[in-house]
């Protein structure tokens, strides 16, 4: 927490080509959100009375929050398992969690038929503790707040160190008549800076309690996401309907969380042209197979216990989807058992993708594919429905790109002094000669070390 030097801002432009592509997707998505609010949910989606939950719940909420569990999984590792060497990964993991959960909340508001009544969650006389949905809703709201609090130090650091160049540029751009007085503005900004400087050490002192809350809450609501489908005993296929759903969902989100933290780091390093954090990632990757093996054991053990093993391998529609999610997770984990594979960014990417896909498919199986409300009901998402989901995902990536440029989020490339490390990074960066922003301090570091 006093580790601000672990992180740095990303140098470079915000308004790139990919920014505008993502923005276009966001706008299309929001167009359909608009249609939904004017003409009703039926006008945009293919949901029906038989399939009242479509991909907005299945992907954006049930799967999206699992994918946003990077912050949760890495926090367990760093603060509970006491592996401080992974600390540099945590801030970007928390940032993606923050967007993941925030936008899951947003898509719930799109999906709810009567969102103006959502205030009832805050009225104790309306509380319904028997409902897993109630538990999920409160926990997700609380967790999103906790994530924002966990991210505040990065914003405060940014405010403390800001030279307000952009703010001044805007002031100068404005017409003198409406522009605020230079001195007043400087004073106000100075006050903000002082406030940030005052708040930061105080927040740092209590931050650990929020971090632990940020571990407790996902443990609760990720298991409850599994509990949501316990009631559908006549509709959910017996391959997936089990009393162990809460446990399976909980373990599932942990291995998705670690894998997504790996993917996230690989992808952002690749697209921002930064050196890969192979050391941290291979360590992280060595944990994943143990979690997945526990999960696979519970999954298979439960099937054996309920005598459903035959249904899993009989080759019908359901069994094929079951085997697909099982094999994706199992094969992805097998790859990670090899130390050599773990040190290769390519294999890390392949295996982590497989595990995330398999884990996500499991959640799709439970919420949609294995869900059969009876004869005559069919569901496949409509174009508008898919675009709303795409728009929300695009918004997530967009916000991530903007935030890593504005606030110190990404691990500091020059922060860890191990010579092998640094050399590897320089070798890496020489392959990307166009990216010199972070290189200069690195090269200087090498020179002084030599």
């Amino acid at each position, binding site marked *: 927490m006093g*580790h601000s030097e672990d992180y740095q801002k990303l140098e470079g432009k915000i308004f790139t080509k990919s920014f505008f592509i993502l923005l276009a997707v966001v706008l299309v998505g929001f167009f359909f959100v608009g249609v939904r609010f004017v003409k009703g*949910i039926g006008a945009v989606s293919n949901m029906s009375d038989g399939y009242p939950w479509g991909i907005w719940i299945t992907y954006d909420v049930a799967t999206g929050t699992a994918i946003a569990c990077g912050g949760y999984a890495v926090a367990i590792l760093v603060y*509970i398992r*006491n592996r401080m060497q992974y600390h540099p990964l945590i801030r970007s993991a928390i940032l993606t969690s923050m967007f993941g959960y925030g936008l899951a909340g947003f898509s719930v508001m799109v*999906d709810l*038929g009567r969102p103006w009544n959502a205030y009832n*969650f805050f009225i104790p006389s309306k509380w319904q503790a028997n409902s897993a949905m109630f538990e999920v809703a409160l926990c997700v709201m609380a967790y999103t707040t906790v994530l924002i609090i966990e991210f505040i130090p990065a914003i405060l650091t940014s405010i403390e160190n800001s030279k307000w160049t952009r703010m001044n540029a805007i002031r100068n751009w404005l017409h003198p008549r409406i522009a605020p007085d230079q001195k007043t503005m400087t004073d106000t900004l100075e006050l903000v800076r002082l406030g940030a400087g005052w708040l930061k050490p105080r927040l740092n002192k209590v931050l650990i309690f929020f971090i632990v809350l940020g571990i407790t809450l996902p443990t609760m609501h990720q298991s409850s996401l599994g*509990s949501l489908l316990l009631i559908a005993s006549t509709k959910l296929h017996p391959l997936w309907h089990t009393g162990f759903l809460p446990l399976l969902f909980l373990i599932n989100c942990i291995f998705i969380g670690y894998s997504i933290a790996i993917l996230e780091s690989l992808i952002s390093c690749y697209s921002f042209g930064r050196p890969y954090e192979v050391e941290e990632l291979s360590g992280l990757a060595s944990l994943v197979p143990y979690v997945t093996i526990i999960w696979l054991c519970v999954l298979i053990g439960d099937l054996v216990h309920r005598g459903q093993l035959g249904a899993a391998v009989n080759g019908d529609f359901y069994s094929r989807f079951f085997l697909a999610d099982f094999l994706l997770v199992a094969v992805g984990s097998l790859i990670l058992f090899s130390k050599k594979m773990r040190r290769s960014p390519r294999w890390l990417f392949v295996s982590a993708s497989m595990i995330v896909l398999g884990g996500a498919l499991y959640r799709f199986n439970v919420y949609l594919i294995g869900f059969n409300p*009876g004869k005559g009901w069919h569901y496949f998402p409509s174009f508008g429905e898919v675009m709303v989901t795409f728009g929300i995902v695009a918004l997530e990536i967009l916000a991530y790109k903007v935030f890593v440029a504005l606030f110190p989020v990404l691990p500091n490339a020059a922060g860890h002094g191990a010579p092998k490390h640094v050399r590897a990074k320089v070798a890496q960066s020489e392959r990307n000669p166009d990216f010199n922003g972070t290189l200069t301090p690195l090269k200087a570091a090498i020179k002084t070390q030599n």
Partner: protein
Amino acid sequence: MKRQSRRDFLKLVGATGAGLVAAGAATCQAHEGMRINNEELGMLYDATKCVGCKACMSACKRVNSDYGSLSYEKAKFDTDGLWDAPSDLSGSTRTLIKLFKESPKSWSYVKYSCMHCQKPSCVSVCPVTAMTKEPVTGIVDYNKNTCIGCRYCQVACPYNIPKFQWEKALPQIVKCDLCKNTNLREKGISACAEVCPAGAIKFGKRKDLLNEAQIRLKDNPDKYIAHIYGEHEGGGTNHLYLASMPFNKLGLPDIKPEAPAEFSEKIQHTIYKGFIAPVALYSTLCFIAVKNMKGNEGKGGKHEHKKEDK
């Protein structure tokens, strides 16, 4: 240091787990044996008496349309809107008569509407208490002023009864409430039972309906399938059925006698009993995290002095 904290962690996790199991065992006992209240109101639908006139459907809309935001559904060929032609229960239809025809000789009508379960899944899952079960009458009722429109009741209901108004910008859930605010209040009977010309719908207390059903089964054993649908299904329902054909062919699902809500609540209560487990988890984790942090501060003093980047 590292190794020790891991051992502590495992120990504490073990202790928390043991606590959970103990709490679970206690709740399981408390939940055993759900009582069925036969004083509640309900209906007995006898498919062998039904003539398929759909008077019940039209009476339902006439009586409840204002209260339940019901509208008439036009058939495709009906430009004047003279015929109400719903093909299924929907956001504007609370009760429906369907014909199941296996062969010219073997056929049956069937009526769909809320089963008014003894232990309703929709009430169990509603996060904001918009679905309620009245303690005396047993009517499962819906309050649109509380409902957030999450549609969990639709996912939970094994009979697919609650319907959502997909085409409306300000939608609500629609389901039968036994004319609680309309016909039942004014005349003491639900509209569908009142208008049925064939006596296929009998309105009354569950115990009287069960008696009547048993008498009919005894008197005409050849006419009926020897089963009262709803007597035990899903923990028992207040809407009961008699028919001459297997009930699952009529669209009434095979459901075990245990209410689905019993199963899910048992697990949910086991995890969250008295909120002990989450609090225990939080305090345990706090203990470990603070200890870890102190350990790191002790050995990593020089770490703090590194120059802050940017």
